[in-house]
């Protein structure tokens, strides 16, 4: 009885996820097909909020679902996942959901008594306690009152850092720590933000590309792209150099490295725009492709170049 009236469409240039509903006669079956394919293949089931997934008698509800009238119902749009009896729905895009042990990149938003607040793309700012950072003069030194007074000499508002999720507070806020020589303040590079779901758990989230660029793939979707630092400097267990760790000054970066950092950053942006999960091998492949093309760094951001780049990925494998 209720239908849509059709008018000539005013705009052709809607985005990739655009969708116009015209009069029912015009096009109706496209969507139907899509649905059936998804459901029958049973490989990956997609759902939307309010859609019933299964009965709650046989299954347990996990994240992204709720129970009403003995039915497990999705509360987010995404893929249904099942582990034994546990049903969860993973949102295809959302803020970062922290887990203990995750590596994250964050930015200091506030300095509070004995703690810093860190924006880590999560539902609340993370907390970095003064007792969870390495203090100058000995890695395991106890914190002193004087440290409390000069917290800004370690981190101040706007500083970027890499840290690990240590624990959760009762209200769900996460607590971070930087008590490792690999963690701490970030320098010599730039930050790129991508949807957190694109960062998969890897063996190591510190990636060194052969082009002299280091990457830190924070699980919260923040990626630090920086100049390569020599291993020996990084691994110097004994020599915790507070001045170097908490320094606000960049090292000298030559032009080639700068270009490489920009190229990597742009590649990440393209891959994120095409929703390609980021791993070291994908990045490497993409980088090689970009160098082969000999295009300038900024040309990478052109739509067609980006599409070619994504298309080239995995082509080697498929052949």
């Amino acid at each position, binding site marked *: 009885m209720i239908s849509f009236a*059709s008018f000539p469409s005013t705009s052709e240039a809607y985005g990739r996820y*655009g969708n116009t509903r015209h009069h029912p006669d015009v096009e109706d079956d496209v969507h139907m097909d899509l649905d059936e394919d998804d459901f029958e293949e049973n490989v990956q089931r997609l759902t939307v909020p*309010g859609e019933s997934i299964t009965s709650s008698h046989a299954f347990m509800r996990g994240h992204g679902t709720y129970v009403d009238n003995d039915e497990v*119902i999705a509360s987010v749009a995404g893929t249904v996942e099942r582990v034994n009896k546990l049903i969860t729905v993973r949102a295809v895009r*959302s*803020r970062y959901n922290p887990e203990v042990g995750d590596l994250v990149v964050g930015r200091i938003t506030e300095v509070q008594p004995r703690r810093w607040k860190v924006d880590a793309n999560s539902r609340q700012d993370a907390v970095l306690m003064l007792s969870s950072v390495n203090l100058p003069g000995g890695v395991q030194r106890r914190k002193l009152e004087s440290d409390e007074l000069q917290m800004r000499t370690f981190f101040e508002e706007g500083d970027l850092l890499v840290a690990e999720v240590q624990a959760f507070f009762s209200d769900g806020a996460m607590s971070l720590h930087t008590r490792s020589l690999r963690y701490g303040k970030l320098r010599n590079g730039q930050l790129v933000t991508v949807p957190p779901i694109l960062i*998969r758990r890897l063996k190591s989230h510190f990636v060194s590309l052969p082009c002299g660029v280091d990457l830190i793939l924070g699980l919260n979707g923040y990626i630090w792209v920086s100049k390569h630092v020599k291993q020996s400097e990084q691994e110097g267990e004994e020599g915790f150099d507070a001045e170097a760790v908490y320094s606000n000054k960049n090292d000298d970066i030559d032009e080639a490295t700068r270009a490489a950092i920009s190229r990597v950053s742009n590649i990440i942006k393209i891959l994120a725009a095409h929703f390609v999960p980021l791993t070291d091998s994908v990045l490497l492949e993409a980088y090689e492709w970009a160098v082969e093309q000999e295009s300038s760094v900024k040309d990478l951001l052109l739509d067609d170049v980006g599409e070619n780049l994504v298309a080239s990925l*995995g082509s080697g*494998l498929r052949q």
Partner: protein
Amino acid sequence: MSSRIEILNDGGYRSDGRKQYELRDITIDLTQQGTADGSAQLTHGLTQVLVTVFGPREAKMRSQTLHDRAVLNVEMSVAPFSTGERRKRSRADRRILEMAAMIASTFEPVVQTNLYPRSQIDIYVHVLQQDGSLLPACINATTLALVTAGVPLLDFVCAVTGGVHSTSPLLDLTTLEENDVPHMTVAVMPRTRKVTLVTMETRLHVERFRELFELACEAGQTIHREMKYAVKDRTVALVNAMDAGSKGGAADDHDRDVVMDDRI
């Protein structure tokens, strides 16, 4: 008005050529907008709104933080060029404040705010063009924006306007029709068919109300179908892109394993 426009002519057509129960075109664009966590642009006939969602994130207004759930903060702005007569509305305009408050209270019981204590979800509603059915467009776009932001919702909220011309009910009114006939806005949650919002500001007999109300609830289901398709399309597109991407990088075995394990 000197020359009265016929709302519904003898042939059963409305001033813009629609029939009584015909809805105007819906165009839904769920493309990412800037750094927002979720966004939706919804065009309903000539009414166009853009909603962006940020959050759940650290609450900016400390005093209003709730210890057991997230705060929904709705800000609405109406572009001066959105109406025929160019007019700047202040942000403190009572009508805009009321509409923003209505959107906030519509979504409070729908968003699972209890999952995010002490956080804040910001919803920014921008009205780009208005030609009637403004509140439903805002509500529908907000639902979609929240879905794209991955905010857990109990269900979609689908809204539609309805009016009565003498005794014939009409759906999805334009500004012209809203000025002339009694009308109401109804928002439904399609799964349970429950009503979250009803507003009516014009005089209407109880019996007529009943008829129109039931019709509008039905129309909500039709709108829901469209919104669901749009969300599914986007999800499929993103999931496929992700799959293609990980196939490309298949050299990482551990990466694939994680993904495969989770699948049914």
